[in-house]
């Protein structure tokens, strides 16, 4: 019975369809050429539009490249001027950074130290809290909790960094001083902690996306072996999402290294060659802010030092980006 009806349908269907087609086309136009010409006219207009759109997009793409090249060129140009007056060796190995004092000294190491120190504290916080939060959101939380919490978390990323800076200076530091009474009023520690809080949303959100992208079949495989939720998350899902998690961390590193307001406000503008987070510190970005706010003449050596320091920062971020790219490529999984 079923075979009969199936057999009939194909043989019946085409005939009404074809007669319908014939009936529809005949009254419209007897000969095909006009319809054909019309189509060409439409496509010519569309082609012009397409070309405009395409060149517009190409311009947008080019402008981003031009801007990047321009920024690097400007940094290099001013830095070359700087390195005519201060040797590269002194810049890279000097342990005292004092551009505005007499005798002036341009050793970048203290600034580098401060930058790495606050970033390390921040990344530790963001890594621990952000990853834990992401694992919880992705593997434990119910759909409703996740969909409520994630937007709130992303809102945290919208808080201006100035606010974070004063939060570090007026809340976190006093809090730390309750535990450690000898703590100075501004430290790398409190700035780093608040940098961490600031980048938690980035790390958590991106890591959660990466974990979600791990196919459910892998979770089921792990659970079917008798694994717990924790074991599955830790041993299967997180490693499988490694390349995505790396992306999250690369972004976090860039944010931490480049963070300016928090460190300018809360870390204390004192360049010191130390890896002790309980001391005040100055980062590369904080130095740039300090000099920019002052009234140094354009073209003077301390003014040019801004660009050399900026170049240093760019190199630093570049290194971490390349490292992240390499890790991502090495551990990329295709499912």
């Amino acid at each position, binding site marked *: 019975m*079923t075979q009969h009806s199936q057999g009939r349908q194909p043989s019946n269907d085409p005939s009404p369809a074809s007669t319908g087609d014939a009936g529809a086309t005949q009254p419209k136009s007897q000969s095909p050429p006009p319809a054909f010409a019309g189509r060409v006219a439409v496509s010519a207009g569309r082609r012009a539009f397409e070309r405009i759109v395409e060149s517009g997009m190409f311009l947008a793409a080019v402008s981003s490249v031009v801007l990047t090249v321009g920024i690097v060129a400007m940094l290099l140009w001013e830095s070359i001027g700087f390195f005519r007056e201060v040797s590269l060796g002194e810049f890279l190995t000097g342990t005292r950074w004092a551009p505005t004092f007499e005798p002036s000294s341009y050793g970048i190491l203290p600034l580098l130290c401060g930058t790495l120190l606050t970033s390390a504290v921040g990344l530790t916080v963001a890594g621990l809290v952000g990853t834990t939060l992401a694992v919880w959101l992705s593997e434990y939380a*119910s759909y409703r909790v996740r969909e409520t919490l994630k937007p709130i978390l992303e809102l945290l990323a919208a808080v201006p960094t100035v606010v974070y800076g004063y939060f570090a200076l007026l809340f976190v530091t006093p809090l730390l001083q309750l535990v450690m009474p000898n703590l100075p009023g501004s430290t790398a520690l409190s700035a780093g902690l608040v940098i961490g809080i600031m980048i938690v949303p980035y790390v958590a959100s991106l890591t959660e996306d990466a974990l979600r992208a791990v*196919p459910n*079949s*892998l*979770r*089921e*495989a*792990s*659970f*079917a*072996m*008798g*694994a*717990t939720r924790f*074991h599955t998350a830790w*041993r*299967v899902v997180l*490693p*499988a999402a490694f390349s995505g998690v790396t992306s999250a961390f690369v972004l976090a590193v860039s944010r931490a290294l480049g963070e300016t307001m928090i460190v300018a406000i809360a870390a204390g503008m004192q360049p010191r060659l130390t890896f002790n987070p309980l001391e005040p510190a100055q980062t590369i970005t904080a130095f740039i802010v300090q000099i920019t706010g002052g009234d140094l003449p354009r073209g003077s050596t301390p003014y040019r030092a801004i660009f050399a320091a900026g170049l240093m920062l760019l190199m630093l971020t570049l290194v971490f980006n390349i490292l992240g790219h390499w890790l991502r490529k090495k551990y990329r*999984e*295709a*499912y």
Partner: protein
Amino acid sequence: MVNASTPAGSESSRPAPSTPQQRLDTLPSMQQRTGSNARGGHDSGGLPKGEGSASDASQLPARKALVQDLNFFYGSFQALKNINLPVYDKRITALIGPSGCGKSTLLRCFNRMHDLYRDSRYEGRILLSPEGVNLIGPEMDPIAARLRVGMVFQKPNPFPKSIFENVAYGPRLRGMSKKSDLEAEVEKALRGAALWEETKDRLQSNAMKLSGGQQQRVCIARALATTPEVVLFDEPTSALDPIATQRIEELMRELCERMTIVVVTHNMHQASRVSHFTAFMYLGELVEFNPTSKVFQNPDKKLTEDYITGRFG
């Protein structure tokens, strides 16, 4: 290869090409005995009565698991309706039926996979021999159930780790950490999955780089490494080519000498080739459970016959 060349519908009422027949015959005395007593034992509700008579017990293989009055719900939707089904020890039981009939749902009850998702509810019992624990009882820890009941999935799903780490996953979970113990266990499992010769020189390479059939055998080895009492196969060959399919089927026949296997399959030739018992399900209900030869040659129910002859489904 066989299943690809002959369409499912052509099997009709004169089924079971000679090979499965022979394979079934090689099983010790099962064919004749179950064939003869099947009618009496299985007609009512399609399974032997709870205790069964003494003669029944001596003629049928020992029972590994018993599904009793099983109802399963996804939210308010009842996916399984009053399922009663024995699973015999060291035999292969095939679950067949059209898409959406609940065969995978039933399979996933055995290792409590439904517990991973919200709004799933079991009623009834799945008793696992020898001690008769209820796998779906609220007092049963799903993890404890999964430690005894392994599973192989439809799509090969090896972890993105090395072959060694894939197979060692289960033993590690059970607390094995000594390298030599793990190596021995991995070798045993890979040999069991007929994969040792192909992979012994590259145990450290990523399992995702293997072919589909090899990946599925890694998954089988992974399940074997925990020495499960029952292994569930959820359409294990539907993503594989005919040659890989044949290897997996041969492997299942080998494995059933040591463990109990339940397999869901869309491929009726596979069910007839591989299994000793076949359960036909339709719309969440168990229509018929009988020895495979009986289901394919002389089914009790008209519905079963219609399905296996390709009239619907």
